[in-house]
């Protein structure tokens, strides 16, 4: 199945709660970038591995994650 | 309905119902519990919402909620309960939420005693809550006037989306007088597009202490203090008589005004020229009425059911040094009575004070 995975980089505050709950360990802090608020947002490293469990979105305190599945 | 003999509290409640009160929230406190009792009997019969609350704090918060939801809402209390409502009144001014608050004053401070007094003028008129705000304050002297002022209170509250205080005292609340409800003029409420009722497909609305549309407190307060409150000043009302040739002018409101009228009658019988200014709105205060006082005036006396006087400060502002201003009020062991007012006039005119 094809997963479309999106983190709104300006909504994300880099809190890391999603990183902890990803069963595949696919999320990490994007240390290369700072968003408009000065946070280092979280990024998806390999969406082909994503199983679309939605745990990340369920935990996100900022509603920054959007996941769609074909 | 023609003229009926009614108790003040009940007349006020009936007037509110006829003016379209949707909701009453209140807590028992002497000398106004009959308002809550009357509402508890009548409101269910007329399809309105009555609730006896757990405290006056809860009361004013239900008024905030119902007023924000677009209701014509009224509450009533006395001094100690009005103290508890101060934060709510402050919020209603900040948030521009209408409501009618009836204060049947009793003696204060603290729990005071149950007798009628005029001890809440400063609290209600000057604002006992935090921040700078103005509230139109209506003060009846008779029950016929009281029922009209209740109706007017709803209209003014809705017109300016601001709380209005109806300030009377325990004597007015407890006395029985003839009232004619056929003479009562009421108006339906205006449209309230700002009221919270659910989006129903439209844009969301917010009611908060940061008044609608403003981005910061300074802007909201600027609008309040530079335009909204000045606009309310045209609602000033007062009764004035015999000022042009007066040697002595009484300035009094509510029950004190009734005593002042009695005293004026007595003094005129003695040949003294007595004038009267009876504020009906305590805010806006009828400063302009004082310009009608003629050149013969020697003194202004302010009868108030207090010991050192509260409205007297506003009278001193109005007098602006033109005449000496004297207080007469409650005595060492009892409230003021009409003879005290006559005696004070004699003392002032005799130069004894």
């Amino acid at each position, binding site marked *: 199945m094809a997963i479309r995975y999106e983190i709104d980089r300006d909504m994300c505050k880099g809190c890391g709660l999603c990183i902890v709950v990803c069963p595949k360990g696919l999320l990490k802090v994007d240390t290369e970038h700072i968003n408009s608020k000065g946070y280092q947002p979280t990024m998806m490293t390999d969406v082909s591995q994503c199983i679309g469990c939605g745990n990340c979105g369920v935990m996100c305190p*900022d*509603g920054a994650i959007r996941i769609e599945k074909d | 309905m023609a003229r009926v003999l009614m108790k003040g509290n009940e007349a006020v409640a009936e007037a509110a119902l006829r003016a379209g009160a949707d909701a009453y929230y209140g807590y028992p406190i002497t000398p106004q519990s009959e308002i809550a009792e009357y509402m508890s009997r009548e409101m269910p019969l007329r399809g309105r919402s009555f609730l006896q609350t757990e405290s006056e704090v809860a009361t004013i918060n239900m008024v905030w909620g119902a007023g924000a939801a677009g209701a014509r809402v009224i509450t009533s209390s006395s001094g100690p309960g009005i103290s508890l409502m101060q934060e709510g009144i402050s919020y209603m001014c900040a948030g521009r939420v209408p409501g009618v608050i009836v204060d049947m004053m009793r003696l204060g401070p603290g729990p005071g005693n149950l007798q009628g007094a005029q001890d809440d003028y400063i609290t209600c008129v000057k604002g006992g809550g935090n921040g700078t705000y103005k509230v139109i304050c209506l003060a009846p002297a008779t029950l016929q006037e009281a029922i009209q002022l209740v109706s007017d209170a709803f209209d003014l509250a809705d017109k300016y989306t601001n709380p209005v205080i109806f300030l009377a005292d325990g004597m007015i609340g407890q006395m029985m007088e003839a009232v004619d409800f056929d003479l009562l003029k009421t108006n339906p409420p205006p449209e309230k597009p700002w009221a919270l009722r659910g989006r129903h*497909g439209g844009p969301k609305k917010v009611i908060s202490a940061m008044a609608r549309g403003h981005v910061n407190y300074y802007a909201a307060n600027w609008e309040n203090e530079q335009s909204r409150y000045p606009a309310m000043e045209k609602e000033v009302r007062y009764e004035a008589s015999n000022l042009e040739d007066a040697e002595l002018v009484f300035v009094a409101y509510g029950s004190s005004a009734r005593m002042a009228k009695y005293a004026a009658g007595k003094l005129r019988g003695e040949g003294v020229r007595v004038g009267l200014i009876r504020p009906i709105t305590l805010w806006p205060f009828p400063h302009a009425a004082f310009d009608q006082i003629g050149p013969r005036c020697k003194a202004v006396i302010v009868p108030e059911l207090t010991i050192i006087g509260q409205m007297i400060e506003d009278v001193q502002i109005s007098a602006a040094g033109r005449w000496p201003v004297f207080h007469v009020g409650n005595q060492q062991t009892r409230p003021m009575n009409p003879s005290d007012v006559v005696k004070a006039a004699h003392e002032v005119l005799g130069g004894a004070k």
Partner: protein
Amino acid sequence: MAIICKRSSALNPMQFSYCPGCGHGIITRIVAECLEEMDLIDIAIGVAPVGCSSNIRMFYNVDMLSSMHGRACANATGIKRFHPDAFVFTYQGDGDFGAIGTAESVHAAHRGEKISTIVVNNSVYGMTGGQMAPTTLPGQKTTTSPYGRDVETCGAPLRFAELIAPIEGAKFVARVSIDTPAHVREAKRAVKRAFQCQIEGKGYSMVEFLSTCPTNWGLAPQEAMEWMRENMMPYFKMGIIKDF
């Protein structure tokens, strides 16, 4: 194309003002999702508290009233009794609901007001900088209990759900948490049940959330979740305490 996860349409497209990793963010989101999924957006009127979540008046895409501190249940009473067909909810912190607002909260339950209350218990006063709350744990250090909460002088923490549940007018009372995805999903089910209680006109409904305050606890977001799990959960029992 199926949507597995999205930002609720009951939320305005604006960033929450909460600290990174704050439990309020998850809870505010859960409530929004329930409003959307139960088709309540058009008839909802919410009452925002005083505290970190006072800004929900801006976040929610529904009619919102700001309350005086602690009085949301009284405000909601005034609204619901005038608009009985509206869906009226309050969202309050631990001080708002159970310190300054205790009388209004208890009496709304007592009268069986058909409103739904979300209480966010994070054992501190967040907005004002981390002072002791009624739910601060024994020995927990806060800015006004610098030696740790002393049960002898300050009392033991107040358990809100157990305070409200015995009241007859309260028809649904639950305590949930947000420390794991499973608990978040369970919490959402409890909130929907609470909302259903209002929709069916049964009486007062309340969901107490165990939440975190990373900033005032001085912990990173995930550490705060662990602290909550290890310290708050043993004291505040989770579950549906009363159902209708």
